[in-house]
């Protein structure tokens, strides 16, 4: 049995479903708006993560050092790693510096973890190969250019440890390193080779940490590190974090601006369509009023149509938005984003609000239609 309530719903449904061309125009506008809205909101959410990974190509954004004059211990670095989420870690690279000599000429030897280096300093340009076996050495580009320490040659390094005991070890040069920075003047070997050579283990001068976190989160992390591990201090690499924050905030601002423009355009589209609908249906509105419909009732019917378009367009657009943002991130960043499903109800709600605002003027026009026009045959 059809009740007044179900008849009202059917009237709204029929009005849209049997006038498909108009419905399609309005629905396309709202759907496009919702698609861009959800797509951009998702990008806004995911942009720091995606760009954060891109920024990691410029090097570490946090350095762990000993708070006093001493050295870090490897166990302190491991403890610190437990203070941030593992999924935010790009890499943690320990560095230990020692003064060594080759045929009386002084050099700085650096012991490190080359697997981690490739993660925290992807900008290092290597000619040759990474040291993998014990006794393999990388030389900085400046050294290779100015001395006879060339790839594939053998070199003996010697020096004295903290106890002033003399040490000596043979290495084979397997590659040349160019960074354009101070690294070009160093000799690089694995940390275990350096430890074996000096006879001192479990220490490092600093650790470069690359995390997908923004400046605020990193600042908070430095505080946590300081209070959690005595003798260990975290310092921001400000030239990286500052640039990252500046670029991200500008990009986010731009995306929000585009989102606002899209919402405004959607509103104009819906208003125009609904206005056209009102003009096309002046006789129908006049007829309804002539049949005894109150103006407010006619207004509510138009609003209901608008709301239905808003909900439908919001839902369809949300699906489109998920797809849109996925395509963007894959094509721009080469990685799929994490879909934020809670943004779907947010998008639908926003589109409903946009539609309500957009329908205000058309509804006002609809309720002002003179019912006498149906008798005048206008």
């Amino acid at each position, binding site marked *: *049995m*059809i*009740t*007044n309530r179900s*008849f*009202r719903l*059917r*009237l709204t449904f*029929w*009005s849209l479903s*049997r*006038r498909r061309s108009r419905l399609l125009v309005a629905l396309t506008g709202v759907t496009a708006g919702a698609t861009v809205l959800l797509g951009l909101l998702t990008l806004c959410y995911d942009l720091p993560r995606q760009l954060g990974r891109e920024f990691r190509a410029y090097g570490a954004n946090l350095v762990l050092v000993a708070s006093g004059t001493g050295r870090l211990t490897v166990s302190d670095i491991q403890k610190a790693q437990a203070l941030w989420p593992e999924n935010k870690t790009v890499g943690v690279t320990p560095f230990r510096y020692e003064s060594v000599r080759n045929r009386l000429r002084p050099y700085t030897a650096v012991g490190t973890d080359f697997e981690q280096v490739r993660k925290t300093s992807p900008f290092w340009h290597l000619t040759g190969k990474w040291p993998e076996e014990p006794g393999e050495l990388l030389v900085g580009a400046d050294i290779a250019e100015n001395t006879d320490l060339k790839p594939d040659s053998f070199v003996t390094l010697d020096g004295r440890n903290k106890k002033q005991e003399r040490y000596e070890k043979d290495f084979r040069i397997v590659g040349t390193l160019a960074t354009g920075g101070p690294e070009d003047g160093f000799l690089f070997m694995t940390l275990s080779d350096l430890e074996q050579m000096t006879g001192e283990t479990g220490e490092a001068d600093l650790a470069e940490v690359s995390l997908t976190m923004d400046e605020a989160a990193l600042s908070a992390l430095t505080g946590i590190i300081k209070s959690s591990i005595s003798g260990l201090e975290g310092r921001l690499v400000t030239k990286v974090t500052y640039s990252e924050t500046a670029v991200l905030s500008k990009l986010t601002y731009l995306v929000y601006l585009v989102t606002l423009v899209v919402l405004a355009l959607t509103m104009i589209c819906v208003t125009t369509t609904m206005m056209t609908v009102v003009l096309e249906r002046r*006789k*129908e509105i006049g*007829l*309804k*009023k*002539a*049949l*005894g*419909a*109150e103006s407010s*009732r006619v207004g509510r019917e138009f609003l209901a149509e608008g709301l239905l378009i808003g909900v439908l367009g919001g839902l369809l657009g949300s699906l489109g938005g998920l797809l849109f943002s996925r395509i963007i991130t894959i094509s721009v960043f080469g990685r799929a984003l994490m879909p934020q499903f809670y943004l779907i109800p947010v998008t639908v709600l926003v589109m409903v609000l946009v539609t309500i605002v957009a329908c205000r003027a058309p509804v006002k026009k609809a309720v002002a239609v*003179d*019912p*006498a026009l*149906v*008798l*005048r*045959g206008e």
Partner: protein
Amino acid sequence: MSAILEIQNVSKIYGGVKALQNIQLLVPQGQWLAVMGPSGSGKTTLMNIIGCLDTPTSGRVIMDGLDLGSLSHSGLTAIRRESIGLIFQEFHLISYLTALENVMVAQYYHSLVDENEALEALAGVGLKERAKHLPRQLSGGEQQRVCIARALINHPKVILADEPTGNLDETNERLVMFILHRLHKQGSTIIMVTHAPDVAAHAERIIVLEHGRLASDRENNPVVSQPSEQKSADSRAEELNQNQKSEESFLAGTMAAV
């Protein structure tokens, strides 16, 4: 017989144009009144005022004992909903609703929708079989009959028909007039605007407006179904399209009733 409608010294002025001037009219319950006159004579203005779609500049309109001048906008809407059935020259059916739904719309704005009652109303105008058709799938005559069913569904006190046959061919004009005859016989008050003398000839009373004034008001011996017309019912039925079987049976039924 008591008056369903009383118009006392009604004038309507739009800007400087006097659309109606001092109209006096008493319409008894159950009367079929035809309003005639040339274009611009004030027919539509009078219909708008009677139909509560407009208000007079001066004078009083009393419908079923109620002074319409005392009513608010919403009160006039209620009178329109409760007491008046409108039949239009251009039918004014809602294009995306079926014949049945178009009738139910009037129920919806009046009180409660009742599908069976709406179907009965369509059956009363011979369109039960066409209930599920959209207006574009109906002929002009069928659309006008849907319009009539819609006007009657809420049992109005007064039926206002504005050129009800103006857009119809001769066959459909006869059908519509038969329906109006039947309604009149059942006691409905009909006020019909027409410019066609042969249509006005069906009414009991004919008034003529000229320049907004009542130029004439006369009783009429209405054209009822003539014996010759009854005889030719079958031949008229043959004039109808063979697909319009419902119209044929309806015509025969209507003729018998008239």
